[in-house]
């Protein structure tokens, strides 16, 4: 059989079931004697619980709270930090904080009980915005400063000295808002007892995270908790740590009640009471010499963490490490802080902290160019990172940077130079460009020190091969990608390779499905395992091989000082967006989108196309219409008719290019790309609008009403 090149598109393993609606999700599952549950949540952003008045419960109904955690257990969910409680005990820090669960057989009865349950609080003054958090409004509730986490990195000369030397200084502040994941399937978890173990069924990205997070609630060993991922209808980071917040209370409830229990959020719950992308404020101050050359940048990054830290320090680190974007700046100082506020904790979301600072640096480069009277792309070209360039953590760019070739692809295809000149500024028409990157996999040596992923392949006597990893399909196409890698190495038909949703009792831990690491890291593990299996495939009937992650040489990193190579490699991207602003209504019509990405070597051209389309449109939604406001601790938008995400009518078909740049340490040369594609179209869109209306745009989203305000009042 003639082998197809790896990148040749195949039909996705999950395509038919999902497209035809026959796929079963968690809400389709029932268990014998299954009970339903509703979360009892804090209705205030900050205060002390004074009293919980539980209505009289009919037989078979239960109220579960922190009091049901056994004495040997601890009331904490172990995400990255352990600060997020399973159930609030005394203090509440945000609207929607879990206080208890109502459990019982009839959902109508549960809804009535929920209406009748009365909680009284001593209310305290909340801090909601970044500024209120920094000002410790209502008094600090984390440390003495409300600063949950903080880091600073420097390169080159001391900042004071750099700014003393400066001829001119250009400074601006950039802001991004909350973003809701809007995964098609809402958060859903069920817990049942099986023999002497608890089984968690979860719509989730990281089954092993759940096990680690909740075992301490009952103080039981990991093998007494089995997590089985159910087919997951989208996640985008919203199901990285957040399923723990459902699974923890369910585990405590099942331990108390002894019956299977499920919890499926409805859409408004999923929007009002779930994690969001961190709002950000980034101040960039650039020192320029008398010829307009950049001497250095002093960057201050603040992310709104919300009520608990969870994984926010890692998100902040990624934000800081991406704060100078695709540019080599002679001297830099980047200070990052995560501030505590009384909003729902912010958490993972496609890009994991990088999109906020990349938005800031890209807007800064545009406005700086305008300040200097130069073309924004010409200015960028002077500072592009190259192979061997120093990064802002004093590491080095390992791979060939193909940005010049990518820029040429999209500027040619979009006729960028002609349009940029012809449209000018303030004509209602505009074209903008943005460059971006994304560090693949866990920061620094995290793959080695924190995860140490494993993958196993099992050959059955009928010749079929099972892929056994903890990585998950969540709509991105990973089951297909991984099966292709194994099939290609083993020279087998794709249908000979099985890869089911993981069960933590049956598969080794290959690490979380996050950080754009799955194809790059887990794909490589499977490639290595398949090479080992290939040697024995013809001679042995029923056997398995297992491999462990091996860190490539030559990527020094110190996690204490944040110095060295922050990532094992970067994906790179470039986007051009062209718009027209309606003269009457200021609605923005996007006329064209041109993007190019360096994803190493593609594992499947159609999967890549799916990720590019989805990521770019999600980024354009973030820039233009996805407005999530928090008023006094409450999210104002709680349905898909008021939290607006784009439909296929809102943006035109895009022209998408790839450059081939095989990555030495990835399977078939592939590297991470699932987040990269989210990281830059927002800034290109803003630059296009900015030129069309001749106003600076430093904040997203930028809906028509904001455009009119800018038109009327100027900057």
């Amino acid at each position, binding site marked *: 059989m003639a082998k197809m090149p790896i990148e040749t598109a195949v039909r996705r393993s999950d395509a038919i079931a999902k497209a035809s609606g026959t796929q079963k999700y968690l*809400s389709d599952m029932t268990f014998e004697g299954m009970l339903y549950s509703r979360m009892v949540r804090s209705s205030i952003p900050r205060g002390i619980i004074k009293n919980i008045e539980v209505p009289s419960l009919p037989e078979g109904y239960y109220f579960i709270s922190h009091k049901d955690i056994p004495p040997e257990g601890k009331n904490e969910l172990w995400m990255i930090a352990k600060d997020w409680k399973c159930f609030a005990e005394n203090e509440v820090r945000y609207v929607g904080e879990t206080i208890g669960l109502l459990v019982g057989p009839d959902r109508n009865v549960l809804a009535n009980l929920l209406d009748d349950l009365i909680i009284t609080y001593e209310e305290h003054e909340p801090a909601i915005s970044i500024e209120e958090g920094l000002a410790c409004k209502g008094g600090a509730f984390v440390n003495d400063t409300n600063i949950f986490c903080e880091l600073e990195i420097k390169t080159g000369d001391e900042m004071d000295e750099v700014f003393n030397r400066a001829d001119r200084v250009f400074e601006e502040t950039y802001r991004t808002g909350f973003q809701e994941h809007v995964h098609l399937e809402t958060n859903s978890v069920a817990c049942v007892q099986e023999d002497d173990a608890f089984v968690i069924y979860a719509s989730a990205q990281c089954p092993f995270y759940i096990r680690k997070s909740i075992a301490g609630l009952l103080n039981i060993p990991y093998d007494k908790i089995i997590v089985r991922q159910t087919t997951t209808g989208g996640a985008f980071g919203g199901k990285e740590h957040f399923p723990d917040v459902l699974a923890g209370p369910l585990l405590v409830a099942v331990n108390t009640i002894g019956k299977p229990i499920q919890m499926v959020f409805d859409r408004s719950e999923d929007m009002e009471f779930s994690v969001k992308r961190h709002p950000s404020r980034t101040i960039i101050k650039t020192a320029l010499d008398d010829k307009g050359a950049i001497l250095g940048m002093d960057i201050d990054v603040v992310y709104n963490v919300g009520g608990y830290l969870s994984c926010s320090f890692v998100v902040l680190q990624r934000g800081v490490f991406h704060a100078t974007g695709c540019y080599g700046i002679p001297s830099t100082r980047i200070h990052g802080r995560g501030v505590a506020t009384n909003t729902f904790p912010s958490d993972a979301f496609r890009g994991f902290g990088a999109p906020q600072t990349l938005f800031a640096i890209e807007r800064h480069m545009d406005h700086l160019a305008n300040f200097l009277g130069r073309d924004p792309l010409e200015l960028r070209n002077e500072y592009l990172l190259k192979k061997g360039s120093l990064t802002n953590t004093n590491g080095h760019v390992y791979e060939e940077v193909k940005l010049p070739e990518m820029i040429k692809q999209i500027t040619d295809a979009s006729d960028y130079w002609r349009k940029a000149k012809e449209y000018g500024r303030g004509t209602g028409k505009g074209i903008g460009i943005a460059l971006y990157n994304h560090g693949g996999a866990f920061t620094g040596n995290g793959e080695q020190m924190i995860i140490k992923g494993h993958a196993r392949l099992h050959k059955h006597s009928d010749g079929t091969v099972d892929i056994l990893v903890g990585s998950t399909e969540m709509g991105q196409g990973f089951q297909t990608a991984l099966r292709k890698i194994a099939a290609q190495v083993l020279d087998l038909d794709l249908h000979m390779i099985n890869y089911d949703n993981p069960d933590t009792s049956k598969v080794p831990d290959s690490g979380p499905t996050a950080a754009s690491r799955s194809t790059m890291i887990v794909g490589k593990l499977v490639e290595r395992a398949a090479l080992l299996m290939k040697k024995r495939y013809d001679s042995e009937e029923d056997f398995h091989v297992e491999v462990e992650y091996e860190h490539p040489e030559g990527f020094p990193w110190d996690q204490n000082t944040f110095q060295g190579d922050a990532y094992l490699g970067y994906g790179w991207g470039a986007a051009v967006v062209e718009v027209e602003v309606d003269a*009457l209504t200021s609605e923005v019509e996007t006329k064209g989108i041109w993007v190019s990405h360096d994803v190493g070597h593609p594992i499947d051209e159609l999967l890549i196309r799916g990720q590019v389309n989805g990521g770019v449109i999600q980024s354009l939604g973030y820039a233009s219409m996805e407005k999530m406001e928090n008023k006094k601790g409450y999210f104002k938008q709680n349905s898909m*008719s008021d939290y607006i995400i784009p439909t296929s*009518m809102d943006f035109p078909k895009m022209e998408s290019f790839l450059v081939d740049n095989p990555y030495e340490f990835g399977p078939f040369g592939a590297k991470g790309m699932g987040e990269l594609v989210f990281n830059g179209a927002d800034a290109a869109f803003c630059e296009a609008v900015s030129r069309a209306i001749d106003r600076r745009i430093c904040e997203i989203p930028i809906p028509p*009403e904001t455009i009119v305000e800018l038109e009327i009042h100027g900057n």
Partner: protein
Amino acid sequence: MVSTYIPKTLEEALIIRKETGARPLSGGTDLMVQYRRGIGVTPKFPWPIMIVSNLKELIGINETPDGSLCIGSATTSSEIAASPLVPWHVREASSRMGAISLRNLATIGGNIGNASPKGDLPATLILLDASVVLASVEGERTVLLDDFIYGAKKTLLQDDEIITKIIIPKPARPFTYRWYRKIGTRRANAITKLSLSAAITIDEKGVITDFRASSGAAGPKIARNKALEATLIGKNVEDIPSLLPSFLADYDKIISPHAMPEYRRTSTKRMLEYFLTEVSKRPSGEIIE
């Protein structure tokens, strides 16, 4: 428990309405959403409900002998959008309401009864001087829609009444130029952020014989002001450019947007200015875009 009734005739529905105060539910696209309580839970209504979507008396679109159009209150947006009998403005608004699945369920009576300032159909119906027919066991009465909806979510509907029909009178002469623009939260499947409906009739001598404009989502109710409209009637279309500044300033006073005031005022002004300026140039097409 809340009672639910399924009357078989309008007569029966009116009796149930009188005796129980049950509210009519047809497509349920507002009520079922507004009173939902989670997956697998029956919505909890504060009053009894009667399902009227199968009442033949409430469905259909007919021309009456005097040339008016009569639309049954349980007629869906999809049916209205597809009917050549329905005036252009109303068809345009119908075809842009929410998503296709919503338009297949949502009814004109519900859109009126809900009385949201963002409602798509009332904005165009008020432009066309439509009336609603309200029935009770006592009989029928007809009320101008612009009076019937007197505030956000507020109507003159009595506790024993049901909206049965919407009557759209035929204008004295066909409109010479028409305008409809909905600014949604996105390009499809969107709630209205702002709308402007307008129409003008010009006679052979260039004299304006009819002019109307209505603004949706620009205040607590659909904004229309006949006294202001009358200031243009009788004027020659050539004089529009000189009349525009004071007309636009006065129009600004009849809208009272609560949220996004600058956006709503500015866009309304720009759209009206554009429509009237285009009209003064006497283009050949009837629809100004």
